[in-house]
């Protein structure tokens, strides 16, 4: 599951794309996508357009990102989820912690 990211300097938003299955094997790549940056972006977006599946360790990774981005003060959008992915996020009530679009 390749992870790629793009940084928008204008909006100070980091967009992380997750391709394929988002599970424990993505752990290291997902972390480096936001940790290996100069400075902390103001906003984050996790783009799930290409994400086919999400497991509970992926939810854990999203929580790690949230923690890194400032916890309750973080600004993280999860965008373009397919139905399966959205269902998992809804069951987990992650709408309380992230902006799901």
């Amino acid at each position, binding site marked *: 599951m390749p992870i790629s990211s793009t940084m928008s300097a204008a909006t100070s938003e980091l967009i992380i794309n997750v391709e394929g299955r988002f599970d*424990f094997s993505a752990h290291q790549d997902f972390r480096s996508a936001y940790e290996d940056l100069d400075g902390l972006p103001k906003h984050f977006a996790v783009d799930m357009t290409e994400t086919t599946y999400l497991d*509970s*360790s992926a*939810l*854990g*990774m999203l*929580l*790690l990102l*949230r*923690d890194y981005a400032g916890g309750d003060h973080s600004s993280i959008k999860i965008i373009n989820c397919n139905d399966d992915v959205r269902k998992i996020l*809804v*069951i*987990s*009530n*992650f709408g*309380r*912690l992230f902006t799901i679009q």
Partner: protein
Amino acid sequence: MPANLPSEKCTSQQPVNVCLLTPQQSHHLSIAHFLDPTLYHLTVVYSLEYFTQSLSATKEKRYSIDAIDIILLSTDLVRAEAANTVRYLQTLIADRYVPIILLSQIDVSLSQTDIDESSILIDAMTAGAHDYIEISPKPSAHTAKLFSAKIASQVRIAAMQTLVQQQNTQIMQHHKHLMVEQQLAEEVFNKVSQNNGIDMANIRHWLSPIAVFNGDVLLAAPTPSGGLIVLLGDFTGHGLPAAIGAIPLASTFYSMVEKGFSMPDIIKELNAKLHAILPVSVFCCASVVQLNFDEGIVDIWNAGLPDSYVLRKDSSTIEAISSNGLALGIVGAGEYQPKPTRFNLLAGDRLYLLSDGVLEATNDKGEQFGDERLLEAISGQVNANSEKGFAAIKQQVIDFIGEHSRADDISLVELGMVNASDFAAMYKETQKTITAEPVSWHFSYELRPDSLRYQDPVPLLLHLLMEVPTLRRYSGQLFTIITELYNNALEHGLLGLSSALKQAPEGFKTYYNARNKQLQALKQGSVGFTLDYQGDDQQGLLVIDVVDSGKGFDYAALAALALPLDQALQQSQPVLSGRGIPLLQSICSKVEYLGAGNHARVEFNWTA
């Protein structure tokens, strides 16, 4: 690991130990001049017998088989025995990778004798030799260079091979270590969850019987008031992270249920504890259910697990309870407000809790079992008895995924609503015979305004009583006694509230608003408990005195009525209604009022 790795030697300029096995008269001896002595240390052995002897005879390092990095074997020495010799050398080398290179006669394709030579080479290489090098009787400078290049290449391959072997050994060791750790974690976990109630007859469960547990946890314990609280949890990740979380989860769950804390309080505490302990990325999805058998009430809270289901007897529709909370351990205490859904159920109605393993169970076509199949399987059991029904659901999942598939991530639990008396009987069966030393103690506890405002003394007192093993089976009755006595002392005695308030419509609301308001304004006053217990394993007597600082009531007038206390109380409405005294009398051997009526004393007796 032996220290003589060729790779280390190349980099550290230590010579590579080359062992040349050749007859004395062979021109193969000429290779001695091809090898750079700063890079290679050559040992020449003229016969296999001598080689074998020297291995065992001397302790000088270069003759030790473990010190040899490459073996050059002249076919002149062994001829037809080449293949056997290679096999023999390999047994000496054992697990190490040491290239065995054959030194052959000139050009193998030319003459009749050379055909013999080539079949010798083929046999030897089939037996395990790594390569061959042709050496002519008068080798050119070019041959010498080629020879050195080949040897250097073999040294690199050996180094790589050794590294792979080394890493493989390391991985195996790590794996072994990991398995041992996980087994330890599992052992601790099993101990923590051992005093659980999941063996009760109204709980059926299908939990993955895997060696290293899968992160799913099932906890169940009877409440002091005769109910049952069950938790099915699913931790992020398997193995160690699950174990780390499961241990505080189980211990907190059991101790709080036993002490009579309410279900929302237990959930809040579990969340707070896991939040404090676990890493950010580890959490526990959970369904928590409280069954109140007396009133047929079930409260369900689903935090992150797939829908739980209610299947009513004589009904084909199934009600789903969807997750409406964050999993335990994600947010801090202040932000966590569990809101259980309430159901009124009758004996025979059933509840199903599950983790995502059942829904994601996959057959060999890659299809998942899914919620539609599960709903169908569950609703198909309306008329089956619980035991057969549950087995049938399980069988449908197994049939779907096929016998050869692993079903190691499945947790499915069925809870049956039963009559209170039936549950009490089940509970009794799970309690083992208790032996106890004689016990005798006295305990006083006084609550002043701040504590009266903010603390509930019932769990603390109950906890104290539950320290006496023989009293544990009476936890429900003791809970009732302490609750009734405390409410009477606080609400009627100290705050002077009248139960008559509760008679009106909206009465309870008015009553509790008044209670809270007065409690907040309370400046002085107290409620004191004195508990006195004496007992052994055959019998026991508990005397509880509760004294409040209120003005009391005219209990003597009641006595003057010369009626049994409960009837007298009924006649003296409204002063004393709602004091639960008939309830206390049904449990206690003695209920009396002393002093100004602000002092209640009850005695609770038990005999084996």
